[in-house]
């Protein structure tokens, strides 16, 4: 919520204020105008930490924030989504996210300084599901997609899980937080496309070996869609489950604009175009139809020519929105 302004008396104005303060649940996202604590360069990336206790206390690994860019009257209208990289109890609760400068919005963000205010909505999206038992987990990240894996590693460690990292990027300066990865994980393996750090190649070139040596029970992955597709295939050949966090262009992050859809097979076997912001960004890898990303599969619910069976209709009716 924005900071409440002073308002005059009057019943109707008071009603307006009540409406603004309303929140539906304690677990849902909040909108806060929060001060920047610091902005730092981390190799090829920037990391911004904001003071946002409401977001910090609700956060679970895998969730993201969306941040307004350019100021209140900016012609750059849409928020930028960023995975939450770190949450700390300082100042009542801080949240850190990572980004690289790609356009005018992220360039503006990189110019923020301490005490500047940012309009941030979060935490958004479904978190990584955590195993009940202390199993062996391998965390695979591509580029800045590594960011949400660090709080995940901490959550898993607290549950007694073994954590191994496989981090890959185009070049050494884009492998994020190798030192932290080495510290928190049992093993950490790095790959770069140009061979400037770790093994030359892709994360999937080494993942199979890591799974075998660490006797991994589950894979968590975050990065570009082609990487997630390849990681899902490797997990499949080893017969272990994989949770992927997808990166898809989105306008709202709250589930209303319907632009960030990906084809995902439900537990009922029906493919739906689901919103990566609220139905994801975390999905079971084998349920994402990677080959059909960027298209509408002919058998997706409501695809052209689709003829829903009465069972499919009933399933859809029974299904509640997240």
């Amino acid at each position: 919520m924005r900071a409440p302004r002073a308002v005059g008396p009057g019943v109707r104005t008071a009603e307006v204020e009540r409406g603004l303060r309303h929140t539906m649940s304690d677990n849902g996202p909040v909108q806060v105008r929060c001060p920047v604590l610091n902005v730092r360069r981390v190799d090829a990336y920037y990391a911004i930490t904001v003071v946002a206790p409401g977001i910090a206390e609700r956060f679970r690994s895998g969730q993201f924030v969306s941040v307004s860019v350019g100021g209140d009257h900016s012609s750059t209208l849409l928020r930028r989504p960023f995975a939450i990289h770190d949450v700390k109890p300082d100042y009542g609760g801080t949240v850190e996210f990572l980004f690289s400068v790609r356009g005018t919005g992220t360039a503006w963000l990189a110019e923020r300084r301490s005490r500047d205010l940012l309009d941030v909505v979060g935490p958004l999206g479904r978190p990584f599901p955590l195993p009940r038992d202390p199993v062996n987990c391998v965390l695979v990240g591509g580029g800045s997609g590594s960011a949400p894996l660090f709080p995940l590693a901490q959550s898993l460690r607290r549950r007694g899980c073994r954590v191994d990292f496989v981090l890959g990027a185009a070049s050494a300066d884009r492998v994020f937080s190798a030192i932290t990865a080495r510290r928190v994980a049992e093993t950490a393996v790095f790959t770069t496309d140009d061979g400037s750090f770790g093994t030359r190649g892709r994360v999937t070139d080494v993942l199979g070996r890591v799974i075998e040596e660490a006797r991994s029970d589950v894979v968590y992955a975050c990065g570009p869609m082609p990487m997630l597709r390849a990681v899902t295939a490797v997990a499949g050949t080893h017969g272990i489950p994989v949770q992927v966090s997808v990166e898809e262009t989105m306008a709202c992050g709250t589930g209303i604009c319907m632009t960030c859809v990906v084809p995902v097979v439900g537990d009922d076997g029906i493919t739906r175009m689901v919103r990566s912001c609220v139905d994801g960004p975390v999905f079971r890898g084998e349920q994402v139809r990677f080959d059909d990303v960027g298209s509408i599969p002919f058998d997706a619910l409501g695809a052209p020519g689709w003829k829903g069976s009465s069972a499919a209709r009933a399933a859809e009716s029974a299904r509640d929105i997240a």
Partner: protein
Amino acid sequence: MNADLRTRLGGMDLPNPVVTAAGCAGSGRELAQFFDVAHIGAVTTKSVMLEPHAGRPAPRMAETPSGMLSTTGMQGPGVDVFLQRDLPWLLSRGGRAIVSIAGGGVNEFGELARRISDAEGVSAIEVNLSCANHADPAGRYFADDPAQAAAVVQTVRSHARSDLPVLAKLSADVPDVVDLAGACVAARADGLTMINTVRGMAVDSRTLRPAVAGGMGGLSGPALRPIAVGCVYRVHEAMPDVPIIGVGGVRTGADVIEFMAAGASAVAVGTVNFSDPSACARVLREFTEALDARGIARARDLVGAAHRPGTGV
């Protein structure tokens, strides 16, 4: 000062003029995490079709100056799910529902009007005329031809419960929006919602291909506002008794005043809901404060002020 915010649209009474634009608020459930949906004038629900629709492939969205280009292709679960799940949720929260309907043919619109009329608690039906007419070989929209638009409105009016207001949602992508408005009013539309997105394109600077799948998309956001205000002004000038919901790039309370002065009786917040999920509550608060600051006792006194010299300060 306690400004009286009430407004009236073709037999529908709203406690205040701030509503959501169709397709920019779902059925209210997501935005209810940020404000009380019962508190704004009404929620115009995302256009519902008879059958489930998967929509268009990604990429569906590109950011443009002061706006965005999008092409979701009417993705939605269909009217059965809407009536069983989405509408009851909105009504249970005390929200007022303007239900937007979309069809590929005149008969589909008629069937939807009947289904929505049978549901309890709907405040009005909004007819989305910016959808492709399946009977048209060129795949044009109903709104592209005043006669086709009128045929849809007439069918909806005859299938809808007689006490349920029918609003025609108009496009600005037409030779003369006043002609289109006149045709819809002659077909017994109780009110008009204007405007829908404007067709446009963005080319990806890297791939040199259209930025959204399918090439063309609908432009929305503040970039549209002068086009929308102009359409509202012209139609109100030609038909001052026809109530209008103004839509297009509303971002602040001052924008609501602008639309009402041009001739709107209510004003919808659209794309700005994507960037500011509490926008509706904020816009309503700003609007209320602006009325108080100007000493305007009744919001509805603003309607059409731009047509009358001496109303402003």
